[in-house]
């Protein structure tokens, strides 16, 4: 009790395109505390994204329960912000209008308060000068910043991020990771962060959920004892590298058929 997000014995089965049932998640148990940053890591097909979709209320579990603030999730809820792998901005809207789009889409109008909040978020993400540009005039990293700003518009308690930096180059990825840390420190939120990158997970998280695939199961939950605030120096600490090696070994041991995918740090 008292958890912000709780998955208990969640099983999710899909019918695949050839008609056979596929178990995406098998009896997954997971509980997140208030303002906790939890990363979910694992090979492709381990159901990482399925967990996000369940928490977002986009799909219902085949068995078990998903609850937010002890209430079962039956439909998408207001206290959630979602960031996807791709920025998924609307090319016909300016950056500012993209950020206020959730309000326009949900309520059909954008009031001054939302607009002021969007301007504030632009400043927070360093995009003030780009407010009136179209998304295609922005770099991939900047587009993803806009997507993050959009997800924060209604100041959600819970942020769900589905490999948000995986489509970016390594330098931009680091830059945005630190930026996310800063935003999260300024406005604490409960975050579920799906990623392929062990380094990213270590840098950002309080805990890391290591998943195994087919069927998707929670293999291990690892506490990250690195002190906060974390910075570039954190990456250079011997402790950081030791933890990274540990996790890599754990992921490897779950997936004997060695395959570079899923381990890229």
């Amino acid at each position: 009790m008292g958890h912000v997000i709780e998955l208990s014995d969640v099983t999710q089965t899909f019918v695949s395109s050839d008609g056979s049932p596929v178990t995406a998640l098998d009896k997954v148990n997971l509980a997140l505390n208030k303002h906790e940053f939890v990363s979910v890591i694992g090979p492709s097909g381990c159901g990482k994204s399925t967990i996000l979709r369940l928490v977002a209320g986009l799909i219902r579990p085949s068995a078990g329960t998903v609850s937010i603030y002890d209430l079962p999730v039956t439909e998408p809820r207001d206290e959630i912000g979602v960031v996807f792998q791709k920025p998924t901005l609307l090319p016909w809207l300016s950056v500012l209008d993209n950020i206020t789009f959730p309000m326009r889409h949900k309520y059909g109008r954008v009031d001054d308060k939302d607009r002021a909040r969007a301007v504030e978020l632009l400043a927070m993400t360093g995009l003030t000068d780009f407010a009136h540009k179209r998304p295609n005039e922005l770099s991939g990293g900047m587009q993803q910043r806009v997507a993050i700003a959009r997800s924060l518009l209604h100041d959600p308690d819970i942020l769900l991020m589905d490999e948000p930096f995986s489509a970016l180059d390594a330098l931009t990825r680091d830059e945005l990771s630190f930026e996310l840390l800063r935003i999260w420190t300024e406005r604490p939120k409960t975050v579920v962060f799906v990623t392929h990158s062990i380094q990213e997970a270590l840098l950002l998280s309080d805990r890391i959920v290591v998943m195994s695939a087919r069927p998707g199961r929670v293999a291990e939950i690892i506490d990250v004892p690195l002190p906060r605030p974390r910075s570039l120096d954190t990456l250079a600490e011997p402790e950081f590298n030791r933890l990274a090696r540990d996790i890599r070994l754990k992921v490897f041991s779950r997936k004997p058929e060695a395959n570079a995918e899923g381990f890229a740090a």
Partner: protein
Amino acid sequence: MNPALLKLLDRAAPVLTLVAVLLLWEIGCRAFSVPAFVLPAPSVVVSSVPSLEFSTWSGHILATLQVSLIGYLVSILLAVPLAIGITSSRFLARTVLPWLIVIQSTPIVAIAPIIVVTLGAGAVPRIVITTLISFFPIVIYTASGLASVPAELIELSRSLRASRSREYWQIRIPYAIPHIFSALKVAITLAVIGAVVAEFVAAEKGLGYLILFSTSSFKIPVAFAALAILVCCSLLLYAAIVWLQQRCFPWSVSKSAD
């Protein structure tokens, strides 16, 4: 050669080619004394234009434009809602789509006479024929545009619990704009073809009618002149659609596949 000259040549290439072809055509006709009823030289075609009064020409041109544009508008009004229907309802997709394919597979030229018999001799059968020929690409391109929206954007919409109508108006339809314009460009030229086919079958004016009428009385130069005007009309209409897209939806231009 000097680069500035090369660049100029590159720019002028389309026009130069056109002039060269017309010149060759003219020289060929004169050198081999080709009779005008077989292949009139460009100069003969041009000089045949005054054989009809200006008001006669404009009457024919306007008649064809009128049928093309009305048929075109009707096909847009039918096709876009139909595309929304078949992308939003599996039932509609399963029931309507096969009929669309049947209609598209029917040679319109072959059913044109039947339509004229059924619907009488007025403007209606001509508009129906034009619509039939131009609406299919609009349905298909629009539907594929509506379906091309990234799944994540639809999930964003669902996560906001937005209504279906907002999902269409604020996401799917704007997303389909580049696709719709690709369709509109194809369809405008098809609409002109449709109008001409209809005029071949049953009409008392229009450029298609004029071509048919002049060839039957061996006024081949006039037929060629009408043909040239027809091509110009078609190109101008196409350019108008391109202009409209750039004017109203500048963000969509780089994305459109053409």
